[in-house]
């Protein structure tokens, strides 16, 4: 199997089979918080995907050339979170300069990308997986796209739900969680599609 085919399979596997939110349970906070409107969800998803792709690449570099080379495994969490916080800061400044409208609509959610478990979770999986530099970057990209897919789907459903008649006690968080559960069940159907 050529390396390119492997990368393509890795990408699809990460988006569907091992979807970060619905299968791996990473990134739940923003999933519940940002998924109220499709537009915001798309913006958030793309910003997160950008950060995740860069995180995939950066963590591989740090892990290989610093943590492993100098035998400092105990600095893993500290160094990864510093990288992520810096990347988010950088992305924030980038968006502020290039699209002030997007910056305003994302508001508080941009700096919150730092606390998105999905990103740190992604970083932590990189040393465990043994993918190459390119593989890790593709893994990050796939993770981001999978994340975006899940929150956009959820946003679409919740927008429709605004017009529906949700029983009082279920309004808000409970019905969102139940929908998430059903989505997770649907994604279980992808299992076994690709072995990565």
């Amino acid at each position, binding site marked *: 199997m050529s390396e390119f085919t492997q990368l393509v399979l890795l990408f699809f596997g990460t988006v569907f089979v091992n979807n970060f939110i619905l*299968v791996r349970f990473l990134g739940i*906070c923003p999933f519940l918080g940002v998924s109220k409107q499709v537009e915001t969800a798309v913006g958030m998803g793309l910003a997160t995907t950008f950060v995740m792709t860069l995180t995939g690449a950066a963590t591989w570099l740090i892990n290989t050339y610093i943590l492993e080379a100098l035998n400092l495994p105990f600095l893993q*969490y500290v160094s990864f979170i*510093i990288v992520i916080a810096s990347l988010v800061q950088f992305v924030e400044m980038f968006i502020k300069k290039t699209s002030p409208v997007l910056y305003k609509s994302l508001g508080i959610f941009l700096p919150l990308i730092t606390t998105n478990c999905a990103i740190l979770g992604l970083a932590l999986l990189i040393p465990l997986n043994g993918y190459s530099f390119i593989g890790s970057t593709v893994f990050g990209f796939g993770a981001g796209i999978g994340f975006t897919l899940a929150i956009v789907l959820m946003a679409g459903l919740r927008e429709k739900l605004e017009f529906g008649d949700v029983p009082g006690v*279920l309004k*808000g*968080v409970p019905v969102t969680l139940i929908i998430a559960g059903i989505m997770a069940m649907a994604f*279980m159907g992808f299992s076994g599609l690709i072995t990565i």
Partner: protein
Amino acid sequence: MSVNAKQLISDFKNGLWQENPIFRLVIGMCPTLAVTNTMVNGLAMGLATSFVLISSEIVVSLIKKLIPGDVRIPSYILIIATFVTFVDYFLKAFYPSIAASLSLFVPLIVVNCLILGRQETFASQNPVHRSFADALGMGIGFTWALLLLSAVRELFGMGSMFGLQILGDWYRPMVIMVLPAGAFITLGILIAIMNVVSKNATNDTTCH
């Protein structure tokens, strides 16, 4: 510095119910859904998170005047990451099987919005003794919520509690309960029940 006992008790009780992190504030969700498949895991995660929460709230409260406003979030995160690394290595050394079941989610305590949130909303603005009370209450609140969620999931998903078989052979376990889908649905139903009980709904879903 005066110590007001009544205030301390109220700080402590807050996290147990009124502002229960999982059922009311809806923060710290990632580990909540992932490690509540068994009660042992739920308890371990609750205790580990509580330890990190208490230690970091104490440290942040002690040095709050030394941290410039603009770098406070990165500073809090660094402090939290240090305590999490400590817990991770401690578990790996002395409780390896628990470390293995919690795996990825121990380091994810670093980005648990609950811990970061409490530094920002409480520890950075209150004296040490109050921060300790707050952290203790939030930690216990978080832990009992995890235990409740994992009790439901383990009992219906595997027929056991804390690994002890409760339901006999007649019971066919609903495996979905130990899978992600079951976690989402169970938590949704539990929060709905809490809404009935407390009459003012949990609405806030922003990670703060």
